[in-house]
């Protein structure tokens, strides 16, 4: 073996190193030892929810995703709550999981009763053919799950930044889009408002590997987003690298008085970004 290795030309050694690192990546990213197992979820579930039972969630929520990930870095996911956030019972969290991604938990959305409606839209990275699932926990402590299968994008799309320099240069900029409130179920109730928070951030994954380039890109992503209004946290998001660059979330809320809606965003390097907007909806049909 050593003879053969000595005889190898330098470039072959370089390619061996590259292959070594690729394999290192493959082994490192495997969700568990002996992870040839097809059913990643079976492995993952106990880590996230212990042995708690998870019920079919189709009475509580629906998940929409394109059948095929058009761009691996930018896959829109829409979770629709099928029941309002009532005082009796409501969705208090939604965990969004992409089974085959290097970091399967894309985000955990913690919702309040004052969210009005637990519907959430966001954008994620999808690395490979994968189930994408949303697990809702209701206030009474029951878990409900819905899922969709998403085919991977083609061979020339990767879950990486489009314009790396631009996303670093504008990091932390935020924008809120406020949509026209939907009418309340009855005249006595407050209408449910809908808004979209957009955050400039590369949300980059430390898994992006050095080839023979000498490049190493450390993980740097948004890990906490808190959206508050009228003294109440309406939505708290634990984020991770499977959220797209420039993370965005579309959500609902029932205004608690006329105070500003504020967002506080923190990333893994400890950067904190804050912004606030008045709640009067800028009309947008």
């Amino acid at each position, binding site marked *: 073996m050593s003879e053969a290795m000595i005889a190898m030309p330098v470039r072959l050694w370089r390619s061996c190193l590259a292959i070594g690192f690729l394999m290192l990546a493959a082994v490192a990213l495997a969700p568990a030892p002996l992870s040839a197992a097809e059913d990643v979820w079976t492995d993952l579930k106990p880590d996230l929810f212990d042995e708690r039972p998870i019920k079919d969630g189709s009475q509580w929520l629906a998940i929409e995703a394109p059948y095929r990930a058009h761009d691996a870095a930018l896959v829109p996911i829409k979770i629709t709550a099928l029941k309002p956030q009532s005082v009796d019972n409501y969705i208090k969290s939604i965990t969004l999981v992409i089974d085959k991604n290097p970091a399967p938990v894309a985000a955990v959305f913690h919702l309040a009763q004052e969210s009005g409606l637990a519907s959430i839209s966001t954008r994620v990275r999808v690395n490979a053919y994968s189930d994408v699932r949303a697990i809702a926990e209701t206030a009474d402590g029951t878990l409900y799950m819905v899922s969709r299968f998403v085919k991977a994008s083609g061979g020339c799309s990767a879950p990486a930044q489009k*314009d790396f320099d631009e996303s670093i240069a504008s990091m932390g900029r935020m924008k809120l889009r406020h949509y026209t409130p939907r009418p309340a179920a009855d005249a006595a109730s407050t209408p449910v408002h809908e808004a979209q928070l957009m955050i400039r951030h590369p949300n980059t994954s430390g898994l992006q590997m050095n080839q023979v380039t000498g490049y190493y890109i450390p993980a740097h992503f948004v890990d906490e987003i808190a959206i508050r209004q009228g003294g109440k946290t309406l939505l708290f998001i634990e984020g991770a690298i499977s959220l797209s660059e420039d993370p965005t979330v579309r959500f609902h809320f029932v205004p608690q008085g006329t105070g500003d809606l504020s967002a506080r965003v923190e990333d893994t390097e400890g950067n904190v970004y804050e912004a606030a907007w008045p709640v009067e909806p800028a009309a947008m049909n």
Partner: protein
Amino acid sequence: MNTFHYTAPNKRMRLSAPSVFIALALSVVVCLHAPLSRSQERCGAGNALEASVEEIASGVYVRAGVTATMTADNAGAIANVGFIIGTEAIAVIDTGGSACDGSRLRAAIRARSQLPIKFVINTHMHPDHVFGNAAFVADGPTFIGHHNLARALAARGAHYLEANRDIMGAAALAGTEIIAPGLPVEDPIEIALGGTTLEIVAHPTGHTDNDLTVFDRRTRTLWTGDLVFLEHLPVVDGSLKGWLAVMDALKKIPALRAVPGHGPVSVPWPRGVADQERYLAVLVEDLRGLIATGRSMNDAIAVAAESERDKWLLFDEFNARNASVGFAELEWE
């Protein structure tokens, strides 16, 4: 070299010493049993598998890509790639979609000239333009790319290899590896081939954030890489607005003809860019309208630029992707 770190948001993702050992041991085994040269023997110089190229101007040769996605059957030969032969040296411009494809291109070069292959220029990061690089390593050329290319390949290379192995099969990509540029271009550079000089320009974000063009002074031929598509639907993997701005700059280049990244091997310049300009403008206009009325990305990708459907090949493969990228960009306006 062992700077592999990952701050895992999920506790399962960690690197254990045994897995490092297994990975490195496997890599040695793989290297010993599948040397690079094997794929080159099978598809390269010395046999009939030589790329068919057309001389579109004196000394300027282009291998036409098929308008398709990369498959085992087409060996990834879907982009227009080629070479320019000077009186002293040869420059290769893009290397094709696999080591096999690259070695066929190399065979076409060697059928015409024994001059040294001194430069391999990659117009951008996409697999159909860089996967053939390995076929030229033995020639010891200077690999030239945009100053962002190495970073882009570091971020995407492993995924590109893995995703395309899934699609094309490992055999079709035997010997294919990611090779980063040794000469990064930021300000324009010139390279001399004898009898002609190539002007190489790195552009701001457009098709990707690492697009490069090559202008052959002798024949006034502009190699655009994927900054210009014809027939094959343009693919946005950078910035929609940025690309429109780069196109305005490219149109001012006094070229007689251009070699687009996909479509015919030679088109009159700047007329050849008109179809792409129209498509991108329609896409921008449609997306702005959808965003203004509060529609979601999900809704937008189903309808944006639908009026262009019959004017392009591979519309279903790429239009929704373009709409996703454009939507995310334009909603910040």
